[in-house]
């Protein structure tokens, strides 16, 4: 799979269709995001699978936003999986990235990774490598909905009570681009104290994920307290699906219903 990606990125760089390619690189046994500017550098490209598929992930879209803003007019290539593509679409909708500036080099996630992520679309629209894996259902929302109100309340309060307010979920989130964050606004949540005010701290973030969360799962992977954040944001997306027929990141045009000032 990696040879196809290297070949495609090399071709784009050589033909000057892009000025740089954003991907992952292995260096001294570690994986890190890297902006490849010379074709020969691509020999060190890595897909982020160190011991098992997808165990070394980075929010590449976060770096991409910074690069695109710093170098307007330059074309940047980027490695995209299904989740990254949803993110790019959503970032275009939110006017945080101009897709004209981005050349996507797509890969399909292997079935093993799609299963591990329980991903509902483990492939981008166009891929240079890999075959689309079978989508998987995310089961924990339905499992929680099987509980009664009181049980669910206990479950969430237990989970939220583990929070150490590290802001890891926000900091790793490719869709958290606000300059002023509501989680640091003392009119919404208590600031400067630990533990955080629950459940409001997590509800504020959940509400802000409406029309943004592209279900990449990085927040849950980053959380040191293992709070099932993806389950919460998955429900947020499900409400948008059911009540407003909106699917975040499925295209780059439609604005999220809660941010449209009309009926």
């Amino acid at each position, binding site marked *: 799979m990696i040879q196809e990606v290297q070949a495609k990125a090399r071709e784009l760089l050589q033909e000057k269709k892009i000025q740089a390619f954003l991907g992952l690189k292995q260096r001294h046994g570690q994986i890190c995001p890297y902006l490849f500017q010379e074709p020969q550098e691509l020999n060190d490209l890595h897909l982020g699978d160190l011991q098992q598929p997808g165990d070394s992930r980075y929010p590449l879209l976060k770096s991409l936003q910074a690069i695109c803003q710093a170098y307007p007019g330059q074309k940047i290539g980027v490695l995209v999986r299904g989740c990254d593509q949803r993110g790019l679409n959503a970032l275009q909708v939110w006017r945080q990235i101009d897709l004209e500036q981005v050349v996507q080099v797509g890969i399909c996630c292997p079935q093993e990774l799609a299963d591990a992520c329980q991903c509902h679309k483990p492939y981008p629209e166009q891929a240079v490598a890999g075959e689309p894996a079978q989508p998987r259902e995310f089961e924990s929302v339905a499992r929680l909905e099987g*509980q009664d109100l009181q049980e669910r309340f*206990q479950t969430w309060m237990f989970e939220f009570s583990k929070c150490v307010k590290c802001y890891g979920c926000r900091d790793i989130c490719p869709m958290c681009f606000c300059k002023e964050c509501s989680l640091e606004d003392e009119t919404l949540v208590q600031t400067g104290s630990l533990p955080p005010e629950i459940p409001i701290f997590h*509800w504020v973030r959940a*509400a802000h994920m409406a029309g943004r969360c592209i279900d990449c799962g990085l927040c849950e992977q980053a959380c040191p307290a293992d709070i*099932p954040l993806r389950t919460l944001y998955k429900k947020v997306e499900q*409400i*948008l699906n059911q009540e*407003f027929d909106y699917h975040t990141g499925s295209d780059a045009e439609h604005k999220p219903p809660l941010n449209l*000032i009309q009926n």
Partner: protein
Amino acid sequence: MGDCNYLYGNYSAQKRVKFLQGLLEFSGIDPQRLRTGWVSSAEAAEFAGVIKEFVQTLKEMGPSPLNKRPASGGLKRVAA
């Protein structure tokens, strides 16, 4: 609906309340604890009626679980 002083204001409110009710219910809070109603500032009697009814509903439901939550050590893991 549509008569809002802020044009689409009540439509926006309605969407957000619908969303929040879903979030509350999933978090284990009865969604009926959040309600919207459409009353003009000239309709005092209707406003009082809506609030009275809401207060009645809340009284029947009793205190919110958020008001009687045990210390964090007393919570047990119910599901992952």
